[in-house]
């Protein structure tokens, strides 16, 4: 067969070939001509007609052969099966609607969650050879690379042979002032080889060079495409132009293409960089030491080098460095982690948990539809037996039944995709703040392929067993009993499927219950301060005007004065960091007399620079000594407060009050006197144990990046948002106010992963329980229908309603009990996968499990409602007459 012939036959199979009317016309013409011929030879009309028919051959066979030639036999059968299948499905609209709805829910949920999984975890990062990109840094407590010092990466670059490029990045907050409004830009400073490492090039202008990356040379800029369009009208002559930010001049050297996705857009800094400048560090600079860990390290591995090889090499080098500089490096190690993992490590578990949950929902959907099909095949036994008796082979019947399953699952897939399209938008709104690459979540070709794949697998999963059983129905027996009477095999299969339904629903219920308990525990956990009624606004005092600490302090004083005078404000304070505020500053804490031989080994403690009213405003308890006072000015003796955890870690059982400490370096800066001990706070996450903190007066440790805090006198703090921002701008309109947020919102956002998982698991559990209840209802009501006669006989013999009730409930109750029992066992085995997502409750919490079991049992009993009422209404006379 030529390709051309196959193509035309395929068209023919789709009804696009030559029409049968044409053939009929041709054959009629042929027959008439033969007949005329015979008549000319002298035959009578009757004989002529017979001879013509004989010469032409059997009409039906010709048409049959011609039809076979017109199309492909496989397609023809398929079309028949599909047409027949659709007719059968339309004949039972209730069954079809139930099956389609079930599959739509199952497939839709899977498609939606898979679209998230695919975009966030599966799709390669949008850079050339992304598998070679890694993050490099001093190993943090979570095993991931933390920040790193400039000197460390510089030495790695000199000595390592595993990397094509090793690059560095730090946050940066320049302010662009235009049209009377200050805009704080999201920006980063990067080592000159950063774009080379990422494999990106500017669309306009040039990339950074090593010459740009020097302390006196670094004021050159690369703009993002977005910033270029937004603020500079996509002016192509931008390259070479000088722009002023924070009273300093910067020269634009290029614009990145719109396709370049900044790393930090993936929330590496919780920001989306629009502007890049070189790092401009020198080896001997103030911020370049090994312990000056404020940089993010990235690398591109040489082709063929594995992560483990690179990590081993860097750790060897680090050991060498530590021997060479014994007081500059601590005994930590270096972590090298694939970039993708570093970006998505936090969200991997929630996404996989949800994928597992929707897989369960799909399994339940399969079991349910399989159940419906088994029930249906019982009522269709006569039809199938008839077909078998008429000569349809077993394969043919299986194929027909599978076609019907496939129609159902493809229909479910079609509606499921529509559901997913709507759900993806909802997911984006619900997703945790830290979910990276969220903007790439979409139902695209890859996701559709997945949907089709699960639809096919689903169709086979729920269709194969009923199809096989349907095909093997004994023709004679089935025809003889006319589809009535009970068939043990079918009932057992259905009971099994319902137990599976209930067990899976139980697992999801338990999981959702645990997550609900977690959300409750997070919400009621004490962060160490009182967030209620507190509003925060971040702003920065940078540029020439604030080059002197005195200017910053003057601004602070004026602002505090204004805020305290604002109507509705109970109290106000300033800080350079706040808990749950996103910025942290861990500094070495060196207590006189307790400094280790290598001061780098002294503990690193979170530093908060605050104004004296801060502790009272935040409601952090004072445990010993005194609070910070207005008299702790820049000129006075430097003082410091330590948290309880810090006191315990550094001073053990000794009284820390009066101790002399240096922060950020054992041999630098003033000695500060510990004057008080305060309660612990959680810095960013109530689900991890508290870590030490210290508080220095803003007057004695002046910072340009500040948070203004006001506590409202009334319950609603949000009405203070606009006046708060206005107060800052009134003092200096060039000061950018970046984010205004209520403190309780910040605390809630920190638990957004748990909340996200809790909400979705809750929704999936609800669907699962509903589907399981429907499945149970189907089996019980079928059982009642089958036993109508038996019930009738019993009632006739004097059974009371209570006995009938017991009869109906006994079979269903056994199913519910089995399902709950199996479900509890399965839940104990599977809730451990929730792992760190669960907080404040054990993954096998008996109360949660018991509650879930009770809910499921109640729903199970509810599913008996209608069948029980039906059984109670059975009239013995009618029931018996019906036989």
């Amino acid at each position, binding site marked *: 067969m*030529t390709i*051309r*012939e196959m193509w*035309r036959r395929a068209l023919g199979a789709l009804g696009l070939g030559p029409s049968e009317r044409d053939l009929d*016309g*041709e054959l009629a*013409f042929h027959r008439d001509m033969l007949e005329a011929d015979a008549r000319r030879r002298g035959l009578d009309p009757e004989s002529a007609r017979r001879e013509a028919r004989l010469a032409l051959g059997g009409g039906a066979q*010709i048409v049959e052969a*011609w039809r076979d030639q017109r199309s492909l*036999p496989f397609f023809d059968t398929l079309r028949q099966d599909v047409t027949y299948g659709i007719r059968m499905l339309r004949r039972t609209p209730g069954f079809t609607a139930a099956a389609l709805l079930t599959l739509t829910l199952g497939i839709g949920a899977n498609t939606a969650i898979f679209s998230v999984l695919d975009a966030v975890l599966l799709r390669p990062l949008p850079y050339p050879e992304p598998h070679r990109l890694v993050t490099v840094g001093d190993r943090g407590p979570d095993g991931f690379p933390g920040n790193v010092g400039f000197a460390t990466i510089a030495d790695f670059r000199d000595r390592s042979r595993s990397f094509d490029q090793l690059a560095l990045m730090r946050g940066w907050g320049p302010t662009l002032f235009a049209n009377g409004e200050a805009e704080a830009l999201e920006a980063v400073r990067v080592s000159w080889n950063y774009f080379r490492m990422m494999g990106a090039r500017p669309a306009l202008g040039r990339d950074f060079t090593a010459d740009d990356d020097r302390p006196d040379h670094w004021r050159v800029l690369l703009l993002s495409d977005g910033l270029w369009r937004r603020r500079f009208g996509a002016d192509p002559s931008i390259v070479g132009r000088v722009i002023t930010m924070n009273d300093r001049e910067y020269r634009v050297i290029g614009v990145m293409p719109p396709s370049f996705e900044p790393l930090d857009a993936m929330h590496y800094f919780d920001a989306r960089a629009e502007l890049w400048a070189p790092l401009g560090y020198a080896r001997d600079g103030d911020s370049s030491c090994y312990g000056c860990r404020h940089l993010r390290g990235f690398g591109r591995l040489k082709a063929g080098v594995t992560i483990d090889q690179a990590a081993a090499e860097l750790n060897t080098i680090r050991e060498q460095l530590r021997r060479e500089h014994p007081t500059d490096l601590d005994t930590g190690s270096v972590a090298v982690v694939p970039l993708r993992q570093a970006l998505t490590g936090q969200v991997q578990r929630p996404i996989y948990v949800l994928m597992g949950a929707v897989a369960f929902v799909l399994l339940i959907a399969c079991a349910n539809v399989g159940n419906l099909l088994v029930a249906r095949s019982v009522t269709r036994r006569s039809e199938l037996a008839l077909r078998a008796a008429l000569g349809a082979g077993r394969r043919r019947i299986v194929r027909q039944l599978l076609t019907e399953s496939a129609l159902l699952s493809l229909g479910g897939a079609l509606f499921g995709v529509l559901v997913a399209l709507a759900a993806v938008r909802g997911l984006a709104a619900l997703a945790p703040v830290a979910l990276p690459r969220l903007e790439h979540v979409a139902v695209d070709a890859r996701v559709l392929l997945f949907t089709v794949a699960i639809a096919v697998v689903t169709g086979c999963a729920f269709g194969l067993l009923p199809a096989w059983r349907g095909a093997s129905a004994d023709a004679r027996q089935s025809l003889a009993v006319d589809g009535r009477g009970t068939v043990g095999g079918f009932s057992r299969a259905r009971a099994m499927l319902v137990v599976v339904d209930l067990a899976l629903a139980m697992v999801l219920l338990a999981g959702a219950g645990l997550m609900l308990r977690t959300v409750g525990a997070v919400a009621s956990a004490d962060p160490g301060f009182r967030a209620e009624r507190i509003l925060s606004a971040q702003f920065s005092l940078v540029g020439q005007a604030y080059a002197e600490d005195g200017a910053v302090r003057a601004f602070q004083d004026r602002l505090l004065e204004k805020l305290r005078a604002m109507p509705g404000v109970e109290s106000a304070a300033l800080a350079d960091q706040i808990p749950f505020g996103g910025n942290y500053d861990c500094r070495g804490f060196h207590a006189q007399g307790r400094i280790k031989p290598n001061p780098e080994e002294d503990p690193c403690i979170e530093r908060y620079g605050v104004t004296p009213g801060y502790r009272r405003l935040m409601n952090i308890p004072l445990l010993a000594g005194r609070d910070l006072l207005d008299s702790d000015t820049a000129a006075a003796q430097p003082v410091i407060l330590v948290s309880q955890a810090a006191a315990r870690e550094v001073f053990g059982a000794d009284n820390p009050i009066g101790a002399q400490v240096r922060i950020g370096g054992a041999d630098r800066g003033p000695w500060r006197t510990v004057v008080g001990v305060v309660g612990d706070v959680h810095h960013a996450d109530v689900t991890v144990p508290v870590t030490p903190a210290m508080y220095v007066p803003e007057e004695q440790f002046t910072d340009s990046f500040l948070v203004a805090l006001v506590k409202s006198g009334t319950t609603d703090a949000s009405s203070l948002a606009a006046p708060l921002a206005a107060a800052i701008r009134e003092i200096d309109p060039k000061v950018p106010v970046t984010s205004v947020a209520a403190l309780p919102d910040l605390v809630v956002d920190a638990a957004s992963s748990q909340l996200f998982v809790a909400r979705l698991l809750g929704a999936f559990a609800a669907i699962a329980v509903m589907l399981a209840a429907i499945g149970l209802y189907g089996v019980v009501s079928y059982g009642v229908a089958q036993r109508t006669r038996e019930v009738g006989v019993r009632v006739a013999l004097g059974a009371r309603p209570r006995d009938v009730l017991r009869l109906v409930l006994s079979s269903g109750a056994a199913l519910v009990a089995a399902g709950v029992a199996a479900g509890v066992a399965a839940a104990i085995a599977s809730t451990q996968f929730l792992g760190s997502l669960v907080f404040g409750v054990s993954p096998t919490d008996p109360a949660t499990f018991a509650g879930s079991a009770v809910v499921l049992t109640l729903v199970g009993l509810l599913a008996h409602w209608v069948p029980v009422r039906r059984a109670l209404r059975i009239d013995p006379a009618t029931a018996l007459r019906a036989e």
Partner: protein
Amino acid sequence: MLLLISNMSDKTDVLQGTLDLMVLKTLDTMGAQHGYGIAQRLQQVSHDVLRLNQGTLYPALLRLEQRGWIASRWGTSDNNRRARFYALTRAGRKQLQREADDWRRMAAVMARLLEGEGTP
């Protein structure tokens, strides 16, 4: 799919090929012709040696058309009736050439073989 089709036509392949060649040659000699005309010509040339079930011509004509060797068009017959006329395409002419050559070679082989059998 392909398997199904080759299974189906296994036995009739030789005959089909012969019929195809005969139809192509007939159209080459006579020009555009309807099914009845082709059948008449085949009967006439074979001097009724060939017993042709004339209806089987139509699936064959469809196959040849699907392969692009012949093309068809509705027209009017000699006795003023609507009839479908088939004509050789350029690809069909080439195919005829190829099949005729194959057939001649095969016939020559058969002839030699059968002659050789007669001599001691």
